[in-house]
Each structure stands twice: as structure tokens, then as C-alpha cells.
């Protein structure tokens, strides 16, 4: 058996003294899309911050390809190949689209022109906006800048925190399509999503998080078929 790419093992962690994650375990295997869903305030974003070393981890550990990276500072985590797109404020609004991508390449400054070209191919909308300030773009385009920025390094895994929050169905569809494209290039993805149905649709496996702990785990299809989950998250307009 090979090690998972990324693995969070029995984490107890929080901000300062407050514990938010009580017993959380998540792993992502090579070539997988893994979705985390759960109610507001469940600790989904907090789980991602735990990977980036932004949290006070009391128990448990985080491993990348089997190596312990618990409490590694964020800049170093990025250098190790974990690319992270935060839920909010995930672009530099005063920098142009291209400058955002260049900043994304900070830890890997070689071959930037080639990678810019790849990104403009993956996100054609961005090519014509390359000199525009990221802050002037629509929500969906910003989200694409954020993802492209994260892919400017040789990511071993991509962490996306609610990439479709607040977007129109058209953009939502585009983002999910792009996520599958990224997977096909061999980059596994851990994604937090409110749009549970769509997320579980593209995901190989999913986790349902409640109160900082695992509630359900299974393949995307299994979770979609689960009655309780359907009642909790899939009812309503998604």
C-alpha cells in the first residue's frame, strides 16, 4: 500500500485556546477528488487551515506522502507542494491577473512564461483580462484567478475552500468542469463545498463534517444515496 498524498489523522485543533476540530481524520489518495461537506461552522475551513500550519494543533498529525508536516509554517507547506485557495480574499485585488499568477509562482520562479501560457489555456477567460486588476473581475473570474494562481507551482495537491460559493450556475458548472480537468492532469484535489450535490457528483470520495468531527464517509455515490445526508444537505435548491 502506498501512503495517501495528504492525510489528517485524529486532529484535535483550534484557534488559540478554543478547540474547533475534536477528532478529525481525512485522507486523499493519488488521483482523487475528495469533497468535504457539512453545515456552516462545522470546521471545514478550519480543517484546511490545519494543513497550512495556521492552527494550534493539540493532538494528531498531518502527513504529506507519509512525511509528518504538522505545524510546518505556511510558506514551507506551499514549498512542499500543497497549494491552497482560501474561501475568502483569495486574490490580490490590486494586482493584475497576471501579477496574481506570478505571485502564485513565488516558490517556483523558473519557467513562469510557460506556466502562464498553460494557465491561459486552462482558463481562456483570463487570457484577455491578464492586465486587469483582479479586484475588477466578477466573482467567477476571481475564483478562476485564485485557482490558476494556486496551480502556478507544481502542486502535489490542491486545496479548494468553497470555490463556487455565491456563483451563478453557469460559473459553478465551469468551475466543476475545470476541477475535473485539473484532476486529469494528475493533481489530486481536496475540496470544501456548500453545493453538496455537485461536489459529491465529481468527487471520488466525500466526508460529512459536523461539529469538528467526521459524521459520514464514503464514495461520492454512496453519500449521495444516503437518506440522512440527503435530508441534511441535498434538499432545497442545490
Amino acid at each position: 500500500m502506498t501512503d495517501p498524498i495528504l492525510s489528517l489523522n485524529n486532529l484535535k485543533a483550534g484557534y488559540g485556546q478554543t478547540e474547533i476540530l475534536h477528532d478529525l481524520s481525512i485522507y486523499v489518495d493519488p488521483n482523487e477528488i475528495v469533497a468535504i461537506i457539512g453545515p456552516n461552522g462545522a470546521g471545514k475551513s478550519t480543517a484546511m487551515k490545519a494543513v497550512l500550519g495556521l492552527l494550534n494543533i493539540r493532538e494528531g498529525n498531518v502527513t504529506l506522502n507519509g512525511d509528518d508536516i504538522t505545524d510546518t509554517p505556511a510558506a514551507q507547506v506551499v514549498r512542499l507542494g500543497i497549494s491552497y485557495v482560501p474561501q475568502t480574499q483569495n486574490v490580490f485585488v490590486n494586482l493584475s491577473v497576471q501579477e496574481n499568477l506570478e505571485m502564485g509562482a513565488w516558490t517556483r520562479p523558473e519557467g513562469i512564461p510557460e506556466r502562464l501560457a498553460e494557465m491561459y489555456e486552462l482558463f481562456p477567460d483570463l487570457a484577455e483580462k491578464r492586465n486587469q486588476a483582479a479586484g475588477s473581475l466578477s466573482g467567477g473570474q476571481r475564483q478562476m484567478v485564485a485557482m490558476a494562481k494556486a496551480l502556478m507551482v507544481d502542486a502535489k495537491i490542491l486545496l479548494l475552500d468553497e470555490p463556487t460559493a455565491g456563483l451563478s450556475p453557469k460559473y459553478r458548472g465551469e468551475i466543476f468542469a475545470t476541477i475535473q480537468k485539473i484532476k486529469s492532469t494528475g493533481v489530486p484535489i481536496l475540496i470544501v463545498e456548500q453545493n453538496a450535490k455537485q461536489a459529491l457528483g465529481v468527487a471520488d470520495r466525500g466526508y460529512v463534517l459536523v461539529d469538528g468531527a467526521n459524521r459520514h464517509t464514503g464514495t461520492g455515490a454512496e453519500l449521495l444515496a444516503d437518506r440522512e445526508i440527503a435530508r441534511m444537505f441535498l434538499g432545497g435548491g442545490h
Partner: protein
Amino acid sequence: MWDAFGFEFVNFYLIPGLVLGCIYALGAIGITLTFGILRFANFAHGEMMMMGGYLTWTIMAIVTALFGLTLHPLVAMVPATAVVIFLFLLTDKYFYKPFRKEDTIKVVMASFGMMLIIRSAVQAIWGPNQLKFVSGIAKPNEILRDVSGSIDLMLLVPNKHIWIFLGTIVIVIALSYLLNKTRIGKAMRAVSDSPDLAHVTGIDVDQVIRATWIVGGICAMAAGVFLAMDIQLLETTMGFRMLLPMFAAAILGGIGKPYGAVFGGLVIGLAEELSAYPWIGDTPLLSPGYKTGVAFAIMVIMLIVRPQGLFKGRSF
């Protein structure tokens, strides 16, 4: 027209206003960068300018003593800049860095302490009295006077002011190149935009902070030496006197916006000088004693009406 009105206005109000504006602009660049990137109001900035003037004077004095040469301040400024940058980096590492994770107000108070430390150190080393920076009366540049005089627009601009204009233009162009074309400059703008995102993007924020001190240090040095060239003397309160107008300039332009700081500096400098022009009747509109009040008034009005400044900086 020129004789009756323009000559006096341009030569005795407008040009001095622009000179002062250049000095404020350079000082305000450092203040706005520190505010944008390190997120605190650095009260010691004026003192760094003042000390830069004293160090430049010292280098000129040493060269005169050893070689009997009179060094131009702009030449002596170069090694002095290296010293000031070194001191900036040193204070950052041992004085400001420990406060970085704390509330902003603690760093602000620390910078206030640093201001007092620097001034006391300068007074202890160079004495509390004024020093002559450059001697002699600054005569207007003859070529400019003759050329402009021949078309009946006589300009009386001493060489020191021409140097200040040229120096400011060069520095602003270099700064704009740095911020827009270089990797570290773009990273400085990124950190100013969002330090948290810069952090999780893997940007070396400590390196960016060092770059900020270096750039701010060069601008502060230039501002300090230009001021000393202009008034031709050094005194230990000269940096502090500049502090309020420089903050006014940074706020006017928008906190964290270097071009805003340049623009704000020019506006404040011009406003201060032009407020003393006899707009109505024969007496100055405002007695020159109220000059500082002009900067203060602009700052207060700006904070009330448009706290984000003209160039949409950070509001607070």
C-alpha cells in the same frame, strides 16, 4: 502680467511649494509603505530623515578634513544611505519584529519610543545646536535665469532646488519601476494588499519587509538630505517638524498608495506655501506661522470626508 503677478507667484511661492512638496512626497512614500506593508504608523520616520542629514554632514566633514575637498551632499548621501538602511534593518529585527504578532498600537508606541531614542542619540553625538549644512547664499541658476528671462518668463531657481526636483523625479521613476516590474516590488504590493494571502501563497514576507525598510530608508534619506540642502542647516527637530505634513500627505493620497503619497506630498507642500500668498489684498492670506496648520487641516478634513484618501487607500 508676468511682471505684475506671475514672477512673484511662481518664483517665491510656487517653486518653493514644489520643493517642499518633493520633500514631503519622499518622506510620505516611506510612511505609506510601512503603513501598507507592516501595518503601523511609524513615528520614527522623520527622525530617520533627520539622522540621514547628520550622517551625510559627517561624511562631508570627514572628507573635508582628510582631503580638503568639499563633497556635494548628494555624493556624501550614498554611503550615509547604506548606514541608515543598516540601522533600519537592525531596528526592525531587534525592535519591531518582536511586536509583529501583537496589537498594532504596541508597534506604534514602540516607534514613538524609537523616535525619542534616535533624537536623543543624535543630540548626544552631534550636540543640540544647529549645524551649518551648506554655507553661502544659494544663487539662482544662471542658465535657467537667462534662458527664461529672454522669453520674459524669468525663473529664479537655485541649483539646490534643481537637484531636489531631479532627485525626486529619479526616485519616483525608480520606485514605480520597482513596484510594477520587479518580483520583489510586486510582492510588496501583494503583502500590502493582503498579508494573510501572501503568507499562504508562500511569499517570503520577511524578505518583503526588509525590502520595504530599504526602499523607505532610501526615500527617507533623500528627503532628509534634500531638506537639509534646502534650509542649509541641520537641527535635531527638523524630522519631527516634517512628521505631521508627511502623515497628512500619506493620508491625502490614501494609506498604502505610493503614488498617492507623492501626489499628497506635492499638494501639502504647495498648499502650505500658497496659503501665505497675498491672494486678497497685500498681506499674506495666512501668516506663515500657520503653515503647519494647513497640513493639519487638510489631514483632518480628509479623514472626515474621505478617509480612504484620493487614491482609495486603506481606511481605518
